[in-house]
C-alpha cells in the first residue's frame, strides 16, 4: 500500500483526533445535558415503542429541540460535519499526490485473471442511487478513480479507525465488529455465501477467514468498488467472485446459496428497495439457508439522543435514506416474507452493530 506525504497524513490524523474528542468528551457532556432536561424521561419512554415513519419524524423533532439545548451537542455536530467534509477535502489532494506511485503499484500487481470480476456496462443505475454524493464524497462511490487508496491509506486508518461517526461508536474496533457479525451465522457448514452491496472485499474477506472452503460471491452497483474488491481479493488469494448487479435482481438461481450476509447496506436504500432485496435473498437461499444483516439500529432500539444523532446523518452527511431505514422493522419484514427463527439484537453499546438474522424454512 502507498503512504501519504506528511501534510496529508498529519491533516487526516488531526481529523481522527478531533472526531474522537467530539464523539467522546462532547458527546458525554451532551448525554449529561440531555438527561438533566425535564422532558428526558418521557421521551426515553416514548422512544421504546415501534411506530410508523411520520410518527418518528414528529417524535424526533421534539427530541431534537431538547437535545439541541446542549452547547456540547451543538459543537459536537459542528465538528462531525466539519470532519465529514474535511475527510475528502484533505484526502483527495493527498491521494492525488501519490497517483503515479499507486498506478505503478496497480500495474505491477494487477490481477491477470478477470474471470472473477463480472462488470455490466449496460446495468441501469436506480434513480434513487444515481447522483447521491454518499457521505459527502464528491461524485459518490464512483466519483474518484483512486477511491480505494484514498480509503485504505488515508481516511480508513487515520479517521474511521478511531470510530465516532454515524452509528459507529468511538473506540470500537471496526475490524473485530465485522468478524463478530459474521460469527452470527448459526449455520457453519456453508458451501456458497452471497453478499448484496458488498462494496469491496471487506466483509467477504472476513467470511473467507471463517469459511475457508465456501464459494464467495459479492454483488454491487458500483464498478469502482467492485474493481477495488477484485484487486484486493486476487492479491490476497481470497477467491471471491464480484458481480455488478442490483441486489433486487441478482444472477443467482433459486435455492442456490446457503448464507447471505448484508453489511451496512439497508440504510443506503429506500425501505421499498430493502423489502425487494430481502425477497430476492429469500429466493436464492436454499431451504434451511440463513441471512445475517448488520445495519445501524432502528430508532426504537436506541435512546432519544442517539436517535437524534442517527437521524442527523440524513440531512447532514449525505445519507438520504438513513432515517427512513431506521423507522422500519427489518425483523417484521423478514417474518412477513417467510423467514423463520428471526432475531434482532445489538452486539455492542449504543445499539451497534445491530444484527437481524433469520432462516428460510427447511
Amino acid at each position: 500500500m502507498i503512504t501519504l506525504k506528511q501534510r496529508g497524513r498529519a491533516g487526516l490524523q488531526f481529523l481522527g483526533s478531533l472526531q474522537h474528542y467530539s464523539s467522546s468528551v462532547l458527546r458525554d457532556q451532551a448525554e449529561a445535558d440531555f438527561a438533566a432536561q425535564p422532558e428526558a424521561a418521557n421521551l426515553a419512554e416514548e422512544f421504546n415503542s415501534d411506530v410508523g415513519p411520520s410518527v418518528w419524524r414528529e417524535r424526533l423533532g421534539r427530541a431534537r429541540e431538547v437535545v439541541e439545548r446542549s452547547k456540547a451537542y451543538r459543537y459536537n455536530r459542528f465538528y462531525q460535519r466539519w470532519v465529514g467534509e474535511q475527510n475528502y477535502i484533505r484526502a483527495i489532494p493527498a491521494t492525488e499526490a501519490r497517483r503515479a506511485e499507486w498506478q505503478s503499484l496497480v500495474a505491477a500487481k494487477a490481477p491477470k485473471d478477470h474471470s472473477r470480476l463480472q462488470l455490466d456496462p449496460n446495468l441501469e443505475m436506480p434513480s434513487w442511487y444515481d447522483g447521491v454524493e454518499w457521505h459527502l464524497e464528491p461524485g459518490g462511490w464512483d466519483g474518484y478513480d483512486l477511491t480505494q487508496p484514498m480509503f485504505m491509506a488515508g481516511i480508513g486508518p487515520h479517521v474511521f479507525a478511531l470510530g465516532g461517526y454515524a452509528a459507529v461508536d468511538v473506540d470500537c474496533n471496526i475490524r473485530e465488529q465485522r468478524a463478530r457479525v459474521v460469527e452470527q451465522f448459526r449455520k457453519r457448514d456453508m458451501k456458497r455465501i452471497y453478499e448484496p452491496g458488498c462494496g469491496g472485499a471487506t466483509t467477504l474477506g472476513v467470511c473467507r477467514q471463517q469459511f475457508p472452503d465456501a464459494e464467495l460471491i459479492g454483488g454491487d452497483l458500483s464498478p469502482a468498488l467492485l474493481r477495488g474488491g477484485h484487486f484486493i481479493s486476487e492479491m490476497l488469494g481470497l477467491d471471491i467472485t464480484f458481480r455488478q448487479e442490483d441486489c433486487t435482481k441478482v444472477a443467482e438461481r433459486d435455492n442456490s446459496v446457503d448464507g447471505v450476509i448484508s453489511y451496512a447496506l439497508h440504510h443506503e436504500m429506500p425501505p421499498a428497495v430493502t423489502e425487494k432485496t430481502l425477497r430476492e435473498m429469500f429466493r436464492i437461499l436454499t431451504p434451511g439457508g440463513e441471512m445475517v444483516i448488520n445495519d445501524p439500529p432502528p430508532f426504537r432500539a436506541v435512546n432519544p439522543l442517539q436517535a437524534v444523532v442517527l437521524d442527523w446523518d440524513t440531512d447532514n452527511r449525505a445519507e438520504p435514506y438513513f432515517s427512513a431505514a431506521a423507522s422500519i422493522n427489518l425483523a417484521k419484514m423478514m417474518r412477513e416474507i417467510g423467514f423463520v427463527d428471526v432475531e434482532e439484537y445489538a452486539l455492542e453499546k449504543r445499539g451497534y452493530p445491530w444484527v437481524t438474522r433469520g432462516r428460510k424454512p427447511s
Partner: protein
Amino acid sequence: MSRTVERPARPYLGQMELDDVMRMNTELLAELWILRDRVTVLEHMLEEKKVVDRKALSDFVPQGELAKELERERSALVNRVAGAPHAKSYDFETLAKQAEIG
C-alpha cells in the same frame, strides 16, 4: 455528475457567521497540528543525523540578539491577531516600520 458538495445552508452554532469563525478556527488548528507534526519529525530526523540534540534544543535559552528577534516577532504576532478586532485604521508609517518582521 458535477462532483461538487455544497456547504450546509443552515448554521450549526446558531448563526452563520459563528460557523464561519469556527471553520476558520478549526482550519487553523489543523494547520497548527500539521506544522507541529512536521517540526517534531524534523527534529527527529536531524537528531538521527546527529545535527541536532533534541534535549539541547529543549533546554536552550535564547540570549542576546536571538532573544530580541524572538520577542519582536512574538509581539508582532500578538498585535496582529489580538489586535485584529480593535484596529480602526491602518497607516503607511506603521506598515513601513514592519519591513524587518519575518
